[in-house]
């Protein structure tokens, strides 16, 4: 280091701040970040890297199927663990078709557990975010259990499925003789939402159903739709689906009309 080089320059002297920083409060978009030359300031580069790392981990963190199954059983549900036909995560990402079908063992396990026809089958699928299932599946099912009790629906054992996509629920629901299948799935993680749960409802599940035949409730997570609100919406859609015998584009979610001051009414247990 040369002795005459100034050593007192503050790091922030090299960052040009954006004077419109107050606008950043009105959008989740990353605005008014400032710049170092033409690049992002160090703080922002690292903030972005952390968000991306969390989203990547959400995709690749191994799904703790045993723990999730145990926690769901502790809520009082019957459970069964299965895997899709995709043997590993990298295959799962390359071959969406395999993630939509049960493994041979999984199919056999469900056939063994299939009993009399039921109203609803519930499938918990890791999807593209095991982080989302680890964080949201159990508290959501706790909230949904009260809605099931309120409506008096009969349930198949809760299926906990590894390396699984939404359409795996079609095969599972069909084997379990369910009128409708509900799939809880880890959604494709966004940079700001690595732990978002999606709920997909399909009436008369059969292999080969198209996405246009499903209803979806998205963004179930702390900063998004609450577990209680999501459970209320799902129960509303289920009631309509079972009564009208359909799901998909012709079933519109109008549950918000029943909200009280923006909140779902509490379940009434009988």
């Amino acid at each position, binding site marked *: 280091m040369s002795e005459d080089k100034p050593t007192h320059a503050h790091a922030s002297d090299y960052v040009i701040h954006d*004077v*419109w920083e107050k606008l950043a409060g*009105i959008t989740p*978009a990353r605005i008014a*970040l400032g710049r170092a030359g033409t690049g992002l300031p160090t703080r922002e580069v690292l903030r972005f890297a952390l968000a991306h790392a969390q989203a990547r981990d959400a995709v690749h963190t191994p799904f703790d199927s045993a723990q999730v199954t145990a926690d769901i059983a502790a809520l009082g549900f019957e459970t069964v663990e299965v895997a899709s036909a995709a043997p590993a995560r990298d295959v799962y*990402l*390359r071959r969406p078709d395999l993630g939509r079908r049960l493994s041979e063992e999984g199919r056999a396990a469900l056939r063994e557990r299939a009993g009399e026809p039921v109203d609803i089958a519930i499938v918990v699928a890791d999807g593209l975010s095991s982080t989302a299932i680890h964080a949201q599946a159990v508290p959501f099912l706790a909230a949904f259990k009260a809605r099931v009790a309120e409506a008096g629906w009969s349930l198949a054992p809760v299926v906990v499925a590894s390396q699984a996509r939404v359409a795996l629920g079609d095969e599972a629901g069909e084997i379990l003789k369910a009128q409708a299948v509900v799939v809880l799935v880890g959604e494709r993680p966004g940079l700001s939402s690595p732990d978002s749960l999606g709920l997909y409802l399909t009436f008369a599940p059969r292999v080969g159903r198209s996405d246009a035949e499903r209803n979806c409730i998205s963004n179930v997570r702390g900063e998004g739709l609450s577990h209680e609100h999501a459970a209320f919406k799902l129960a509303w859609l289920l009631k309509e689906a079972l009564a009208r015998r359909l799901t998909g584009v012709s079933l519109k979610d109008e549950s918000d009309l029943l909200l009280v001051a923006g909140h779902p009414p509490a379940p009434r247990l009988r």
Partner: protein
Amino acid sequence: MPYRHVVGPQTYAFADLKDLMAKATPLRSGDMLAGVAAASAEENVAARMCLAEVPLTAFLSEALVPYEADEVTRLIIDTHDAAAFRPVSHMTVGDFRDFLLSASATSEALAALAPGVTPEMAAAVSKLMRNQDLIAVARKCRVVTKFRNTIGLPGTMAVRLQPNHPTDDAAGITASILDGLLYGCGDAVIGINPASDSIPALSELLKLTDGIIQRFEIPTQACVLTHVTTSTEVINRGVPVDLVFQSVAGTQAANASFGIDLAVLKEGREAALSLKRGTLGDNVMYFETGQGSALSANAHHGVDQQTLEARAYAVCRPFEPLLVNTVVGFIGPEYLYDGKQIIRAGLEDHFCGKLMGVPLGCDVCYTNHAEADQDDMDTLMTLLGAAGVTYIMGIPGSDDVMLNYQSTSFHDQLYLREVLGLKRAPEFEAWLQRMGITGPDGRLKAHRGNHPLLAAAPELAA
């Protein structure tokens, strides 16, 4: 017609031109998913050697997607310009590559040739090209389009300002637009992907962007990226529409899955033209494409995804679009697995579009389940900048909070301009200087005090 190629003791047979093209394609997950990829590295190169010997005229006589079953094939064959094609009509695919790289293939010669190049010819030659070839030839191609400014001039690169918001909140969108303008972005278009598809909500967004453009007399255009039939309906209700948007693909069946055909696109274009809102030109269409869309719609006819992508540009071409971009990494790892595949696809798409005379930009992007990151995007955008890409996306901090993917940012385009010396559309560049946002050298000024754009923010966002 079957094709064969001998490598040492091994004879490789290819059932037809479609099979040969697929096996000659650099490896990617989508072609593996479709079951059309080469089974080994050697078969891939054998297919390329075989393809190099195929005469270009073969693509005029052997359709990869049947003529009778597909209106895109009919469009390609029925509108082929034989006179433009004549200078290369005697060449094989391999000869064609050598010609494109040669000094004989000047910008003028390539512009004259473009109407004679079918998408299959462009795709075929791209399969024989390395990344540097794709860059070197694309750089020579000139495609200039106009609406309220001039896009595609040599030495320029435009940016789409993409101010998306998860709930279409007017204040939030306005904040992102102001941020982008103050970073010198928006000459390609101010283009919003709406969360809603309701006509009243879309109309509000169109009025919002039109209001900002009118108030500050910005030489640019706006677009709300909704279905072409919805845009046509909005136009009929008297709402200001600059550009009509549509996603398109390379087969009739894939387009049907998007709810469109060529006739619907023609209606959309005529509706936009009827408004006469362009001040410098009549390029009123904005199209998006991307490798894998046909397979995803189960409408690929056993053709590789890169060839089908080039066919999507043939769909765009007759509608004289202002902008076309490939959304290269959006579709996910089952089509383009990692950064290497995304980079290659981006360069192929840009080359094929430009060779065909289409104003190709690129959404340099990836999703979080692909094996890619910001370093891969830096590489691709730098290569595309060198290749003369028409435009890239500008998204606050690279993070699209509505569509949940990462693309290029307001900062990224500043970096490209700095390292490659790229200018903006000249009319927009002059506006930025008038507004005191950039200096005469095109660099951003350090913003001091309250800029007129910011002073207007509270009422714009109200």
